């Protein structure tokens, strides 16, 4: 168990380091001169150079990487080119907004996906199963802005039952804010549903074919009891991993949903930073996402070990 933890942590740090490399160098290949981008096309060459020196962008690449990483380790995420102030409060505020939206999506999709998957598994091969599988796969590959637009047309424009912007504005109550988040959350739910349902289905089918399920049937347990007591507990283990690791996707989806519904979240922050060539903001935003993903994966692993005694027992430590 200790070696397992140590190795997981080691791998996690390695992954984070590679992510930081990708993020930093991807940021560097963006064209254009940051000083020019900030001051605009009319500024003199000299003032652009002065600003570049001030921002430190004309130092060698490696020096900049080292000082960036050094800053990160001290909790300094850099200074935004666009706002000329620390990046950190922007990223933090955006993250809080995104977490709200993502949580709402998860709260809706997790039970829905699990129920859908289990129903599909119990009817494996029949029409219900095919309908759930094909619907899930289709919803999962319909881009969020497509389902978002259909939802806006139906609920926002035609029926006028739900607000079509994600932010309720300053001073709005929690309940109002919640109503504003419903429409943006649904496209995320659509995409995740098929994925979770598919895992739950596979896990349930595997459990149904196991020896312990056969034993339960043979000793005469009612089907409902067998499913509740023996199947679900086992079938849902892999689903947990999937749910946790979907946070990575979820944030990608947030870029689109937050843009569509004009919501100030991390996706929107990254999108706007890329357009404005605000590297420090961009790097901080993307790195935050990488960290969230890595932590979520780690949590899922630990949760899985905690819930499944067979993985804890030693022997193979994965």
């Amino acid at each position, binding site marked *: 168990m200790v070696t397992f933890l140590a190795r997981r942590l080691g791998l996690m740090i390695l992954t984070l380091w590679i992510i930081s490399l990708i993020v930093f160098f*991807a940021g560097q290949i963006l064209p254009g001169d940051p000083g020019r981008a900030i001051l605009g096309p009319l500024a003199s060459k000299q003032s652009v150079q002065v600003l570049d020196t001030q921002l430190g962008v004309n130092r060698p690449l490696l020096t900049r990487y080292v000082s960036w990483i050094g800053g990160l380790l001290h909790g300094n995420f850099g200074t935004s080119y666009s706002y000329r102030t620390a990046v950190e409060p922007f990223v933090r505020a955006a993250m809080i907004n995104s977490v709200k939206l993502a949580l709402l999506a998860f709260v809706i999709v997790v039970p829905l996906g699990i129920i859908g998957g289990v129903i599909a598994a119990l009817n494996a091969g029949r029409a219900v199963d095919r309908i759930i599988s094909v619907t899930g796969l289709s919803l999962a590959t319909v881009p969020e802005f497509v389902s978002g637009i259909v939802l806006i047309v139906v609920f926002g424009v035609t029926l006028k039952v739900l607000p079509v912007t994600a932010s309720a504005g300053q001073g709005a109550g929690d309940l109002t804010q919640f109503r504003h988040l419903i429409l943006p959350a649904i496209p995320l739910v659509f995409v995740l549903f098929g994925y979770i349902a598919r895992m739950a289905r596979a896990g349930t089918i595997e459990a149904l074919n196991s020896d312990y399920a056969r034993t339960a049937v043979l000793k005469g347990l009612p089907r409902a009891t067998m499913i509740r007591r023996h199947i679900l507990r086992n079938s849902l283990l892999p689903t947990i991993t999937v749910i946790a690791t979907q946070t990575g*996707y979820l944030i990608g989806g947030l870029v689109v949903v937050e843009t569509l519904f004009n919501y100030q979240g991390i996706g929107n922050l990254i999108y706007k930073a890329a357009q404005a060539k605000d590297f420090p903001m961009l790097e901080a935003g993307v790195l935050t996402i990488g960290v969230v993903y890595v932590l979520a994966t780690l949590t899922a692993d630990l949760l*899985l070990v905690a819930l499944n005694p067979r993985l804890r027992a030693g022997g193979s430590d994965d």
Partner: protein
Amino acid sequence: MTDLSADPGGAEGLEPAGLEAAGVDPAGLGPGGSLAPVGTVAVAAPTLRAQTRWRLLLRRPTFLVGAGILLFWVVCALFGHAFAPDNPLAQQLLSANTAPSASHWFGTDGLGRDVLSRIIVGARDILVITPLATVLGTILGTALGLAMGYLGGAVDLIAGRIVEAVLALPAVIIAFLFIVALGPSTWTLVIVIGLIFTPLIARTVRAAVLTERNLDYLSAARLLGEKPGRIMFREILPNVMPAILVEFTVRLGYAVFAVATLSFLGFGVQPPTPDWGSDIAANYSGLLSGYWWQTLFPALAIASLVTAVNLITDSIEQVLNA
């Protein structure tokens, strides 16, 4: 869950808990860690002849519906200019924002251009970029996956780390970083999406290779003194082909997703060239004024293409499992 024993020392390179064996890819390209077809990744060596499979496929109604819709869009992409009712670029500002009617079945957009014509002609770019990007990703991913799975060791460990790091970042974000850098064009999109698919496909291929690695025919090939390159491409590749085929069709669906999303965000085909994603972005503000037809119809076009690809994917998967 049989990966635990089958893969001493290698499995943890990518995945905890041996999930890979179930064909599951719990990571995050968007929607697509992948809805990788659970249980089909390790499709056994072909048991049915290709011809039989093809006949089985043609008998599935889902396949026929999907292929029909796809064919329709392919025809639009190839010959759309010939039968579109209007010039998709012709602006008629006097008849801007008119609702669907007999003269404009799908209405007109904010510049008075015929929405139906723009949808028909706009099929071209997405139908060119999507398959090219998927083919590129499949070729690179297959080569990488074969190397990771068969050579193992340091190759697997290092490539595995890089793959995981790429997967940790949402595909959309990686894509637009590189597109901003390289400038949006058809080829940029093909290359960027192809490269993003590479690690995802490599994972699937690697998992499939692992199930082959200890089989007798490979020991025999090694004993005959075959070189690793030959073993990978001539011995293993044909046996993991079904898994690659399924992965290819699954990725095709996500490629549609990615291309549409990137052009919606403004990183794809640039206006005034008609394109579903960028037309939606351009007309989005009109939606709130009630001009729903300008965005809804292109959105439905994307949805229909995605559904068609999925129906085909699902049928192929079913037939390969038969």
